[in-house]
């Protein structure tokens, strides 16, 4: 890596430091205490999550990042109540969480829109289940659809929408329930780079304007730094918290910050944590490497690619 003179990712400008101080004074929405999950396989018991502790404050944006197999999806699914845990506690507004519920909205990577329902009906489902009358549910749903800019597509079916649009519907559907917290499991992972950047912008815009706390899973370092107030870095085998990073990039965010010193400093730190320099020699090298020999004929016209 080219060596750049960067500040430490711990250096915070007075404004940023002040914001974090105020952020931590806000009420705690989600508290995770000693969360551990093991499951049994044919090879014996595997610890997917080990003693995870963290809390998120109201209207905070937390990203969870880690190498593959670190259990970040398991973590968010556990928070959603879709998976059991072995020990520890998950508290939402101080009350323990058991099973899935409308107080925790979830957006999945695979969109998971109901294909037989139109956009409007998809957004209406949660409201219908909450016992809202049809007209009230419809009216409310349309407001959320408007919020994500899909009014024109209210009566379209999911298959008629692009990936980005589908994910906006999924966000509107989760938000329509007015959950305390929005859990997002690599929601933009299946989108192309341009759509993904646009979606990040939309998401920040939505987050700014409504009272919602976000826990966002990603494996994309830039995405995590760009979106998050704080980044929870996990490590694999077992899934443990490595560090909770306070992102020193000032808010509100904009794409021009992607090359700012704070941003790059944070990214360097994340690289160190997730792809530690020594790691390759430990396990990768012999097991997972191309076994290349030169296969270009001696008299080839283009002898070298360099």
């Amino acid at each position: 890596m080219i060596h750049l003179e960067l500040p430490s990712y711990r250096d915070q400008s007075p404004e940023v430091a002040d914001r974090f101080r105020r952020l931590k004074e806000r009420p705690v929405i989600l508290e995770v205490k000693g969360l551990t999950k093991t499951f049994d396989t044919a090879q014996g018991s595997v610890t997917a999550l080990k003693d995870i502790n963290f809390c998120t404050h109201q209207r905070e944006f937390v990203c969870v990042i880690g190498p593959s197999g670190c259990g970040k999806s398991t973590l968010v699914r556990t928070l959603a109540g879709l998976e059991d845990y072995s020990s520890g506690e998950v508290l939402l507004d101080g009350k323990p969480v058991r099973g899935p519920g409308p107080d925790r909205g979830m957006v999945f990577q695979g969109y998971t829109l109901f294909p037989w329902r139109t956009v409007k009906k998809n957004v209406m489902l949660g409201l219908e289940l909450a016992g809202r009358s049809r007209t009230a549910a419809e009216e409310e749903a349309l407001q959320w659809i408007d919020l994500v800019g899909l009014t024109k597509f209210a009566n379209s079916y999911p298959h008629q929408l692009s990936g980005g649009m589908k994910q906006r519907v999924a966000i509107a559907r989760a938000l329509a329930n007015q959950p305390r917290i929005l859990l997002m499991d690599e929601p933009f992972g299946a989108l192309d780079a341009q759509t993904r950047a646009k979606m990040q912008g939309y998401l920040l815009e939505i987050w700014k304007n409504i009272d919602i706390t976000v826990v966002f899973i990603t494996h994309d370092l830039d995405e995590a730094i760009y979106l998050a107030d704080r980044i929870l870095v996990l490590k694999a085998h077992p899934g443990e918290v490595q560090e909770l990073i306070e992102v020193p990039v000032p808010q509100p965010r904009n794409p021009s910050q992607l090359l700012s010193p704070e941003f790059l400093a944070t990214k360097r730190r994340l690289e160190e944590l997730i792809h530690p320099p020594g790691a390759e020699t430990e396990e990768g090298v012999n097991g997972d490497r191309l076994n290349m020999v030169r296969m270009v004929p001696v008299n080839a016209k283009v002898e070298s690619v360099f």
Partner: protein
Amino acid sequence: MNKPWFAVRKELSSRRRTFLAVMSFVFPLLVWSLVSYVPFIWHPQVEVIEAGEVDYFRAGMLVDRTVFEQERETLRAEGRELPTGTRTNPVYLPAPHEVATALYTAFSTEPQRRNEKWLHESLANSIQVIFWGFFLSSLIGVPLGILAGTYVAVSRLTEPFVEFFRYLPAPAFGALAVAILGIHDAPKIAIIFIGTFFQQVLVVANTTRKLDPSLLEAAMTLGARNAGLLFKVVIPGIASDLYRDMRILLGWAWTYLIVAEMIGASSGITWFITQQARYKNFDNVFAAILIIGIIGLTTDLILAWLGRRLFPWQRAARA
């Protein structure tokens, strides 16, 4: 229009599709016509026109060609009057035009005996039996299948037995059904029920299990629980596949019809077919078989068309 006709899993233009669909009917009809109308293809028998001096020949009689040739040889050697005849197919293979005529006359011919039924009455009877058998089976089978596909407990409680029972051939219950339910339509309906029900439970349960589990998870995070999950997600989610299953199962019900109608007092279209075969009216037999095919195909086309209207969101998946 230079696209290849044979490209692996590539769609054809709608003109080609229609053309091929028509050809799928034209081709067998062509083979049938060739065998029927070209005298030197097959035609293993001879229809006697003049008996000549063969004792047992009668005009209009069908004899095997070898027998006919032998008799001719014998007579020629003895210098007696030779029989004449034309090559023909056996009586059980009528020509297309004969069957086409029979399609009309079968409906317009009065039954041979007073207590026998007209063809359309037989048909109506058959359709009624199918309907009740299939309806009663679905009435229990579909909900049970959905529950078995949704709840593991229901699945474990029902499916092992159903799995066992579906290997028992429905016709084997014929005698039992007659003993219990009498000789009229009831045992026939029972046979169709037995033939359909056990398959139906398994097929519906499987279809239900194929529903994308992430949709259920999404619904649960939106606050759906047992009943809400079942009625707002599971049932609408599988509705279109369920509909397709029912179309296939209805086809199976038709195959059981023929067996069902043989037991007890023979009735319906099967009775018509066996009766006509007894009179050697094979053109009527073919006509009746064709009618079953036509009814089946028409029902299926109507159901397919209805399905497209009922499930508009499915269109993309197919295109």
